[in-house]
């Protein structure tokens, strides 16, 4: 793959950013439909490039420009973030003209996707850091975009303070790793680790600091405190985008870093098998973070009264499940992670889409605003129910398949206690995912509650997201197989 090819998504997106900014300037304050067309086209083009990469098998599995590794994992994550961006942009079109965001929203989403696609490919600390910060900084602005909204302001302030400090921790950790590795590439880091650098105490400290940055990005405990406030205060479409794309990109970067921290060099046949034996400090940190994250997320979610906050804690819990795969770190677990991310994409985007529709119709994001929705708008309520059940992991929904594949990979390594904790967490989560269902169905209809309408466009978008959630169990073999093909190419060197 040539350098130009590797940069194609970034080039397309940057062109999109410029086009959006010009179009916005030319529109003189009006908000033409041209903007979503431009940003949508750019994202579709990027998605198409990623699909072509995957289908054409021309990625070459090597490092381009000394910083970007072009492999199936990169392509998958690029596709993933482009789709998430596209859905978030479409979700903002559902409302009436006044609530549509301006050009800066489109430009920022495109910038964020640039950062995410680069983060997934980055195998150099400098690139990694820059991509990470690009995602973060665009995120801060996206959250605080509605300047007159007090809650959004507050959310943005919390996000930026928390994010800046965690990225400060990360860059300090990276500076130490740079010193240990004698170079900025992750391969140099791995070489240093293999030759024994990991026995130095400063190594563990540096790794913990770098993980802190990623923990912020994926909203893992104890760096999750920002998430509920930010998701509640931010525009719903932005919250959905951050909870899906930003988290996935964080996981992608984390995977590359963990690849570099392995004690043994990978072989061609088994790139990551028994790479982090239980007891290694890195696996221990990840396992503890996984348990902590899912438990904190699920327990805190139980006492939420705000729908968006509830979804925020739910997304923290899901980060915990995904960290389980990282801690187990077998090829099986990594393919489970990819599989899980795909299931999470559909469920969570749909959940935030519905939350947005309800918020717009009722003017409140409280769970109580769902009261009697099962009778006010049966189709919307039914779709919402299915998504909630999927997030819980009830068969035959998509979320169940994700959990099945994930827990299978954990049990296969004999980490029974780990799986048990995960299953217990799943049981806890049933309680709070059932709260909206109770409001919607079991408590009758409130008198004089405003009707909740589903615009045709929103209905189509909802159907596109919910259909896989419900019907995917009929034929999920291809996705499971495909998730396995992604893993062998996952490396950091050429």
């Amino acid at each position: 793959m040539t350098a130009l090819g590797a940069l194609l998504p970034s080039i397309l997106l940057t062109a999109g950013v410029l086009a959006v900014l010009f179009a916005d300037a030319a529109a003189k304050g009006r908000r033409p439909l041209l903007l979503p067309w431009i940003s949508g086209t750019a994202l579709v083009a990027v998605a198409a490039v990623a699909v072509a990469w995957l289908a054409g098998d021309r990625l070459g599995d090597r490092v381009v420009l000394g910083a970007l590794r072009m492999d199936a994992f990169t392509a998958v994550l690029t596709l993933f973030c482009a789709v998430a961006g596209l859905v978030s942009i479409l979700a903002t079109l559902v409302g009436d003209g006044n609530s549509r965001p301006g050009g800066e929203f489109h430009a920022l989403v495109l910038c964020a996707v640039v950062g995410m696609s680069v983060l997934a490919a980055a195998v150099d600390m400098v690139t990694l850091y820059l991509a990470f910060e690009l995602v973060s900084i665009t995120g801060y602005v996206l959250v605080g975009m509605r300047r007159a909204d007090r809650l959004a302001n507050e959310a943005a302030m919390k996000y930026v303070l928390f994010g800046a400090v965690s990225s400060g921790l990360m860059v300090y950790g990276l500076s130490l790793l740079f010193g240990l590795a004698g170079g900025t590439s992750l391969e140099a880091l791995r070489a240093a680790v293999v030759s024994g650098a990991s026995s130095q105490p400063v190594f563990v400290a540096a790794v913990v600091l770098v993980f802190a940055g990623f923990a912020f990005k994926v909203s893992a405990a104890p760096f999750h405190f920002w998430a509920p406030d930010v998701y509640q205060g931010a525009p719903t479409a932005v919250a959905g985008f951050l909870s899906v794309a930003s988290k996935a990109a964080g996981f992608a970067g984390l995977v590359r870093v963990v690849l570099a921290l392995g004690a043994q060099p990978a072989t061609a046949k088994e790139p990551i098998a028994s790479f982090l034996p239980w007891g290694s400090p890195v696996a221990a940190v990840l396992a503890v973070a996984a348990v902590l994250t899912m438990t904190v997320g699920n327990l805190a979610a139980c006492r939420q009264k705000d729908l968006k906050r509830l979804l925020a804690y739910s997304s923290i819990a899901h980060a915990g499940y995904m960290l389980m795969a990282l801690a187990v770190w077998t090829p099986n677990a990594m393919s489970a992670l990819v599989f899980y991310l795909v299931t999470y994409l559909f469920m969570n985007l749909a959940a935030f889409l519905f939350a947005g529709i309800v918020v717009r119709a009722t003017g409140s994001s409280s769970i109580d605003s769902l009261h009697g929705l099962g009778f006010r708008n049966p189709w919307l309520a039914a779709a919402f129910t299915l998504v909630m059940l999927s997030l819980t992991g009830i068969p035959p929904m998509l979320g169940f398949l994700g959990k099945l594949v994930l827990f299978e990979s954990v049990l296969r390594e004999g980490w029974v206690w780990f799986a048990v904790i995960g299953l217990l967490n799943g049981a806890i989560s049933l309680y709070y995912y059932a709260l909206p269902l109770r409001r919607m169905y079991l408590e009758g209809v409130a008198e004089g509650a405003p009707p909740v309408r589903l615009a045709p466009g929103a209905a189509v978008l909802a159907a596109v997201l919910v259909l896989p959630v419900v019907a995917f169990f009929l034929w999920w073999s291809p996705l499971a197989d495909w998730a396995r093909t992604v893993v062998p190419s996952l490396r950091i060197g050429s």
Partner: protein
Amino acid sequence: MTGFLEHIGLMHFLTVGAVLFCAGIVTVLARRNAVGVLIGLELVLNAANLNLVAFDRFGPAPLRGSVFAIFVLAVAAAEAAIALAIVLNVFDSRDEIDVDEVSALKG
């Protein structure tokens, strides 16, 4: 005087870096004012920069670290600009930037 300078090695720089880092973290944790938190953050970032430049000076990969440091500086500037804009916006809307007082969102 030159003799004195020659005695300054990597560890000295790293120690200063570590002290800066700790000072920054303490500032971040202790300050309730959002601008104060940002000032603490700058200390942390500069600790990282000091490390990077020091490793560059004493390590095997010349320039790499310095380039990294320049990027960190640039990013820090962007981050600070955004952060200050957001903090200013919060101040406009409620005359308050104490991070404990700005708490309409909780639960």
